[in-house]
């Protein structure tokens, strides 16, 4: 856990004071609706369908139990005693009162938290691998680099009014668990032949209405130049990114319109002026930041415990427990995907209970994943069975990590003012349809993601199966894509965007359609090791289409029959 120093704390306190004054001026009629909108958004405050929504930053998803207990307390005191973990590793409160938001921010500041730049046309929360610092395939501890980026991007005076929001992800491991290719800027840590640390830099990836995979604009950026290079990218974007059309304002559109090579040339030309300037990072700073992170005091423990043979435990251990770089330890995912509970939702009571678990089993820290689960990253293997019993009693041990029912979903039409359609009931209907664990495990790894509109907060473009809520003459319909992939979590299958299989469906049809897609997959896979997404890439979309809609002849005859009847 990064611990604030006096200046970090002072800046957060000053932000609370500033926002309190902005809220006061708005309520007194001295600030227009439009202007307060721009100011409150960069403090994570939306006005939603039924109430305001406050998005609290959890920088790179890392959270202490002191902070989690405070979130629980805030949710009880100012909201309806629950919160929603989002795909940006943040926590959203769905029912706060606008006039109480300054008080909420003041409470957050007491535990080194805030809502700075969690929305608006600003540089957003930096995200990373939820196994940072503990992964066996680690190249660097990405938390350190995320914190450096967090500080650099906080209240950056030049980039406080960007054309549009800006999302940044860092991956510090060999596998990409941070989906860096679908961010405005994504970094992959690399080591060169001399074992020096640097970053592969991707620009212009993103989801939303124009999904794009990021372009590599630099294969190896030595770490010293990280901030000056990012500054060059942001300056080119700030000056030339489109501001005439909100749907074309993301950096990906600039990269696309310019062409990646020309865009890279512009960045390099700008960087030529900034390179080796005052923003060049120094080793003392990296060490200072590293030194402000608390580190688990690992014990020397047996790395080969005997696990009890209890029904259910094995399945959970196989799915929800990940390997750890320290012998005898493991990383445990607490699932927030229990059927019947909106994905990512946790009650205050659960938050308190999770904090207790993290204190007892994982050095008082936890991580939020972009798949909307929580991770206890430093659990002794010998404690796994006990932890499993406790987590199960709390409804947090659904053994479905990586499986079809570990659904990513945005809050959708139940809460969000932007949504075309609801997400949560669709997720639940699919979870109910696939509630047989043996069957689920047989289907194997499958990411199913749902967004309630084309803003794609549910990351549907990079789900192996992606579901998008669309509006058809005022009715909720669902379009289905297959073949998306969030990133290279397995060698050889990089990030890709899904392809739409055809016309959309009514909500009640969705579970049937998913089942037909699964049937097709099970029939076509060459072995259990070949995942759904691998099959889609091997044989293409057409066989799946046929399974869902009938083959081309059947479709044509049905079409003419329907026309004849019309």
């Amino acid at each position, binding site marked *: 856990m990064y611990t604030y120093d006096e*200046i970090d704390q002072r*800046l957060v306190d*000053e*932000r609370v004071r500033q926002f309190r004054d902005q809220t006061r001026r708005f309520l007194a009629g001295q600030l227009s609706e439009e202007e307060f909108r721009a100011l409150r958004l960069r403090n994570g405050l939306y006005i939603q369908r039924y109430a305001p929504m406050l998005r609290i930053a959890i920088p790179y998803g890392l959270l202490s139990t002191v902070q989690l207990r405070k979130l629980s307390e805030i949710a009880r005191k100012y909201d309806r005693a629950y919160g929603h973990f989002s795909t940006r590793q943040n926590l959203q409160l769905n029912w706060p009162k606008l006039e109480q938001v300054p008080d909420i921010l003041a409470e957050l500041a007491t535990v080194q938290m805030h809502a700075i730049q969690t929305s608006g046309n600003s540089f957003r929360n930096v995200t990373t691998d939820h196994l940072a610092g503990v992964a066996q395939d680690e190249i660097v501890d990405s938390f350190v680099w995320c914190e450096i980026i967090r500080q*650099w991007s906080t209240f950056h005076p030049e980039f406080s009014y960007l054309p549009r929001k800006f999302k940044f992800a860092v991956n510090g491991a060999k596998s990409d668990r941070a989906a860096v290719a679908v961010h405005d800027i994504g970094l992959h840590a690399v080591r060169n032949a001399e074992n020096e640390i640097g970053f592969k830099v991707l620009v212009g990836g993103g989801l939303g209405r124009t999904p794009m995979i990021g372009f590599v604009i630099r294969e190896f950026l030595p770490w010293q130049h990280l901030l000056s290079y990012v500054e060059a990218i942001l300056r080119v974007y700030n000056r030339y990114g489109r501001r005439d059309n909100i749907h074309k304002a993301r950096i990906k559109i600039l990269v696309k319109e310019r062409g990646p090579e020309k865009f890279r040339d512009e960045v390099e030309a700008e960087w030529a002026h900034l390179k080796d300037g*005052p923003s060049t990072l120094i080793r003392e700073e990296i060490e200072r930041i590293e030194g402000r992170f608390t580190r688990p005091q690992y014990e020397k423990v047996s790395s080969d415990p005997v696990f009890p043979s209890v029904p259910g435990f094995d399945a959970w251990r196989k799915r929800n427990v990940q390997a750890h770089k320290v012998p005898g330890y493991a990383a445990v995912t607490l699932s927030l995907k229990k059927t019947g509970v909106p994905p990512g939702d946790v009650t205050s009571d659960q938050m308190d209970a999770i904090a207790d678990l993290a204190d007892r089993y994982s050095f008082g820290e936890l991580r939020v994943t972009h798949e909307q689960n929580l991770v206890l990253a430093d659990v002794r293997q010998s404690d796994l069975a006990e932890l499993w019993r406790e987590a199960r009693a709390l409804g947090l041990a659904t053994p479905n990590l990586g499986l079809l029912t570990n659904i990513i979903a945005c809050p959708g039409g139940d809460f969000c003012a932007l949504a075309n359609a609801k997400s949560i009931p669709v997720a639940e209907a699919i979870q109910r349809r696939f509630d047989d664990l043996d069957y689920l495990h047989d289907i194997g790894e499958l990411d199913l993601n749902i967004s309630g509109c084309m803003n794609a907060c549910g990351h549907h473009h990079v789900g192996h199966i992606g579901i998008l809520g669309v509006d058809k003459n005022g009715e909720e319909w669902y379009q289905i894509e297959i073949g998306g992939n969030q990133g290279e979590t397995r060698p050889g299958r990089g990030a890709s965007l899904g392809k739409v299989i055809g016309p959309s469906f009514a909500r009640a049809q969705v579970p049937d359609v998913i089942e037909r897609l699964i049937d097709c997959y099970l029939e076509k896979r060459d072995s259990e090791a070949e995942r759904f997404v691998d099959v889609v890439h091997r044989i293409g979309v057409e066989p799946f289409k046929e399974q869902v809609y009938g083959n081309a002849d059947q479709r044509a005859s049905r079409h003419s029959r329907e026309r004849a009847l019309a």
Partner: protein
Amino acid sequence: MATLIKGRRVIVESAPSPEAKVVRLEPHDDPASIAGRLAKLERVEVNFPKFGDGRGYSIARLLRERYGYRGELRAVGQVGRDQLYYLESCGFDAFLLRDGEDPEEALAAFNDFSESYQASVARPMPLFRRRAK
């Protein structure tokens, strides 16, 4: 009557002399286009047609840091108190506030934050270099 703040003080500006050497840049203008004659200018104005248009911040830094402009750099247009801290950090030293802004409140806004992490015109060394000393 719009308020002018200069050197963190509210001032009353005398009528400009007709031969005053002033250039106004719009957000899409390239500051490089006036780089050659900056030494002869009394004032450069950068227009903010909209509160949320952030291009002027980059223009200011370029004028100060890349082209070495030392004269008055004035933010005009939709300039309100909530932008002042950032504008000053980027090198503006004069601010023509839009109508309806309270001058006293505006002056207080320069102290919204007491530190910043980044290198800027106001603080040429980023915080980590100042800390390392």
